[in-house]
């Protein structure tokens, strides 16, 4: 029983570290910021999650100690990682970081752009007046 659990925990941790490795390869191989943030926001989240779950299970079965902080850590990573990916790619877009060769690039180009520019000008005006 404990052997199978040990093997299971080992597999979980190994899977998590492999996912982190794949994320790193993705960061090197993929062509632009946006596709890279795909890799970073998904694989890295699940990789860290699996390693934390492995640690949780290990201390639960080996030391009979249930660490609630690890659960909390899992939840926090789960919630924050995609938000970070979103914010980074959004900031990249609005600071004119170029996209790769694209097919559809709808509306961010057509709709949002002038509005934010106007807002930027307005803000600058406020700054100069103040």
């Amino acid at each position, binding site marked *: 029983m404990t052997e199978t659990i040990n093997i299971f925990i080992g597999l979980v941790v190994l899977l998590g570290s492999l996912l982190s490795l794949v994320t790193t390869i993705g960061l090197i191989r993929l062509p632009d910021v946006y596709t890279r943030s795909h890799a970073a926001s998904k694989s890295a989240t699940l990789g860290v999650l699996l390693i934390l779950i492995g640690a949780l299970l290990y201390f639960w079965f080996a030391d009979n100690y249930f660490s609630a902080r690890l659960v909390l850590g899992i939840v926090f990573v789960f919630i924050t990682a*995609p938000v970070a990916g979103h914010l980074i*790619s959004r900031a990249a877009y609005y600071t004119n970081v170029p996209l790769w060769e694209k097919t559809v690039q709808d509306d961010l180009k057509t*709709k949002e752009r002038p509005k934010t520019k106007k807002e930027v000008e307005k803000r600058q005006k406020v700054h100069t007046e103040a």
Partner: protein
Amino acid sequence: MAFQILINVVIAFSWMFLKNQWAIPDFIIGYFWGLVILFLMRRFLPGRFYFERVLAAGRLFFLFLRELVLANVQVIRDILRPKLKIEPGIFAMPTELKSDWEITLLSLLITLTPGTLVMDISDDNKILYIHAMNIPDTNQAIAEIKNTFEKAIMEVTR
């Protein structure tokens, strides 16, 4: 919903007072009977029976986990393929969700689904701008996934 939970807790406490026993198991038993009473009296209470929503939230959570695993499988496939075969792009997706809460949840789910990443949300909260890894082959499938997500979120929130 909060009102119904409050009633349920009050019923559980009344159960503990009636039994004159003050332990967690008694609270759980009382909570269960409160749930039964609320279910029988659901016609007289405002809103839906709240436990349905709890179940819907559970379903949403499992949907979330499944999509996370699928997303990772796809990202791994995209990254480790010998020749990089991706066609990224940004597309717009209209959404019916209204409140900030629902939209945040939806974009969290979308970001963790296969091949999509939320880039921006229009000022009137009606359109999500999504960056996709493979525009041609996933556009249709993604729209379907979004519908299931939106439906699942609506099941929870209204």
